[in-house]
């Protein structure tokens, strides 16, 4: 069975990159236009990387891999993010 988790499980890797909790950020899917908080998306995580997908249409919104000390972050599946950050 595939290892499908909630977007919340990707919070760790995302917070290595972004200096805030990305799971509370709203992301609009370029595939179907649905907007969800990232914590409510579907996260597939294994040794090669993390893929966060739209729960409605399975489009990959966020893909992250970490190779040789560098993060590769592909967000072509995101139309727009809405980020509320309070100091």
């Amino acid at each position, binding site marked *: 069975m595939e290892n*499908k988790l909630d977007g919340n499980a990707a919070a760790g890797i995302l917070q290595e990159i972004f200096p805030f909790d990305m799971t509370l950020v709203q992301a609009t899917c370029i595939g179907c236009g649905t907007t969800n908080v990232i914590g409510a998306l579907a996260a597939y995580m*294994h040794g090669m990387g993390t893929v966060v997908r739209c729960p409605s249409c399975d489009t*990959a919104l966020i893909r992250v891999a970490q190779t*040789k000390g560098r993060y*590769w972050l592909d967000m072509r599946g995101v139309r727009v993010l809405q980020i509320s950050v309070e100091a």
Partner: protein
Amino acid sequence: MSEGFISRGFRGRRQKSDESGRIPPGQYLERGFPVLSAGPTPHTPLAAWDFSIVGEVDQPKSWSWDEFHTLPREKVTREIHCVTKWSKLDTHWEGVSLDTLLAQVKYDASYVIAFSDGGYTTNLPLEEVLNGQAWVVDTYEGQPLEPQHGGPARLLVPHLYFWKSAKWVRGLRLVDDDEPGFWESLGYNNHGDPWKEERYWGD
């Protein structure tokens, strides 16, 4: 970095391997068959399944499941090597060689992009999928390939890291110019030779 921190008494579950020479550098022997999935498992019904060769070809060609099973088949036993460091020896597959499939089209191309249900892609030089180096396989250890391992059919290119053996493969697109696939565009090596430890971009 952990700055030299060691967890007292931790060794991990890797097995020391006696199979020197059969395991590429940096790999360990795995007796199970880990499932790494980057998305939901497709469940394409066989009646809807086909395998196509498209792109820089005179005529695109495709085979239905039944037609695919009229082609000459081979049994293949090989080692497989995952970039996450596990290697599995003596895996047994059955399927159709890419030599057989590509012989049925006229083409002029340098690269193939394998594409799968669910959107996965991986790229290979055409010369590395010819001459007995690649198959479309539908049987593993004598049984129909399970969906979690890429069934009904996956690509098998055992001389490269296993991410190149695209699960749920539905065809090849032949191209003149290379196009990095799903992992190749995310920091993994464009080629992926385990014996040269070509794991990551720039290796």
